[in-house]
């Protein structure tokens, strides 16, 4: 029995290690090539950056200076931070209202939010782009507005589940203690929602930071372009004069913030997803 279990464990760990390798390989290859010379990137993409292949951080400097990387980075950062903040604050308030005020309107709102989760983006892509241009939303602020809209379905769903598990008496105690609804929300409810708020923030930050299609459709490749669009432009830029080293460095710089953010907050993800599943 023990030997059988051991074989099974070895098989499971082998499969998991292989899967880990498959997922990590592209990141490792990009990291490796970001410090290699251009010639070696195309000639020996899988070799380690040793000896003459290693060019230190030259590629990073080039990536910064040549492709207006900093501007794209700032655009992505502003859009991500503001959108995530907007989604977390506004949808948690909306979910609180929907859960605590029980009437036909809030029931309809809840169904509308949850329904929005199952509508594929491609289905509304054309109309949203058209409306965004009509309403002058083709700006960084417009993108924030659109992301708050697109992100609200899942967030309202997640917050509602958690809020249902918070005894209403806690809010009533706050009311008796002297809180108005705004204070009750920000001093009592929102701090209790922290695990779910962090989960929503991580999920949405990763989505918005990495999103390519919506910013490409709305902001295009102009000065307001986001990081994924800037990287894609660098990849396709000019006939044969692509600087692969600079491109690899840009990719590394593009994924670092979101990985750091994820690692910093990952312990809250499971807590936030499980929160609200069981009362108590």
């Amino acid at each position, binding site marked *: 029995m023990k030997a059988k279990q051991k074989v099974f464990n070895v098989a499971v760990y082998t499969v998991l290690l292989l899967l880990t390798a498959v997922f990590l390989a592209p990141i490792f290859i990009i990291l490796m090539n970001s410090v290699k010379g251009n010639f070696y990137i195309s000639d020996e993409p899988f070799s380690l950056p040793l000896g003459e292949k290693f060019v230190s951080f030259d590629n990073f400097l080039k990536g910064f200076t040549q492709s207006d990387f900093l501007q794209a980075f700032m655009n992505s950062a502003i859009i991500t931070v503001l959108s995530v903040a907007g989604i977390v604050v506004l949808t948690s308030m909306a979910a609180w209202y929907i859960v605590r005020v029980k009437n036909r309107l809030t029931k309809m709102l809840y169904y509308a939010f949850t329904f929005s989760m199952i509508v594929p983006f491609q289905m509304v892509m054309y109309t949203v782009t058209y409306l965004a241009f009509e309403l002058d939303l083709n700006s960084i602020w417009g993108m924030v507005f659109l992301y708050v809209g697109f992100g609200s379905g899942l967030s309202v769903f997640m917050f509602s589940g958690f809020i249902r598990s918070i005894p209403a008496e806690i809010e009533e*105690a706050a009311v*008796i*203690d*002297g809180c108005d609804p705004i204070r009750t929300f920000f001093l009592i409810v929102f701090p209790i929602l922290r695990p779910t708020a962090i989960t929503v923030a991580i999920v949405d930050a990763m989505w918005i930071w990495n999103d390519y299609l919506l910013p490409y459709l709305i902001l295009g490749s102009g000065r307001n372009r986001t990081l994924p669009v800037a990287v894609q432009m660098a990849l396709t830029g000019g006939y044969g004069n692509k600087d692969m080293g600079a491109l690899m460095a840009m990719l590394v710089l593009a994924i670092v913030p979101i990985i750091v953010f994820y690692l910093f907050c990952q312990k809250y993800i499971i807590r936030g997803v499980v929160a609200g599943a069981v009362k108590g």
Partner: protein
Amino acid sequence: MAAIKFRNVVKSFDDGKVTVIPDLSLDIKDKEFVVLVGPSGCGKSTTLRMIAGLEEISGGELFIDDKKVNDVAPKDRDIAMVFQNYALYPHMNVYKNLAFALRLRKMPKKEIDEKVRWAASVLEIEPYLDRKPRALSGGQRQRVALGRAMVRNPKVFLLDEPLSNLDAKLRTEMRSQITMLHKRLQTTFVYVTHDQTEAMTMADRIVIMDKGVVRQFDTPQKLWSEPADMFVAGFIGSPGMNFIDCLIVRRGESLCAEFAGNRLRIPSAKVKMLEPYEGKNVVLGIRPEHISAYTGGINTRESCVITVKADIAEMTGGDVNVYFNLGESRCIARIGTEKKISAGDSVPLLFDGNSAHFFDKVTSKAIGI
């Protein structure tokens, strides 16, 4: 310190489709400890929540300290409430939980600290001031909830089944703590429970409610000895009062109650009020404590001995609950443990007529009250 007055208060839900309190008038005196008690859904918690301002009043008037508070926000009513599930703020430690209401009122930090430490010392929770609620036991949480109410120094304390989540031993301990707290604070307490033992042991006066109606509002002693109707008589006491259908008849000089082939002479003090019922059916009520094992001793004129067949004999410690049928009525007698009784035994029982109650069969009201 405040008196609370309900004047024809109505509470309904769903735009008046469901009325839970049809017409409530009640006077709670200043510094009184009043317990609202009744079965689930009787409206006791709704009544408490109306005092707190957590439920709107659909009709009538509510006064706290002679000030009409129908439209006054909870925070402006100068009340404090302790909830069944403690309702502590989980993200704050005990100190911050206690200080929260005072900080909202922008009280100076030094004064807040004094009040918090005073409440903590009274309730013996000083060692836990830095702990979050999740690191406390049920009893400690309940004390924190009480402390949160105490620091406010409110006019009225509202307590909504505060002990129902505690185990039996802790409940007994906390019961005496709350009673002592009331004596110490000299404030009006309104306490909701479905546990009649809590009600009887803690209250100055008890409001017994059923379906939104006050059945009786009186002292524990009066509720026990002079229940206003069959609901109150059956609700107070454990096991509840036995109800036996009987016929009031005159046998010679005496007025008697006849039931299931037995006869109980009506005590002289009750003859006058039962005379109008001669020839009519009434309900005889007798508490299990007032039926004892007959050992052949003195049998007064107002007692009768009935031999019954015990169906079940439950040992409760100091007493035995004997279950038996009398006519169509299911009855219980609480008797001493001197004589060993088993299920199936024939047991001679002495019914104490002086402690018997009589109720109108139609209205279920106590006769003569």
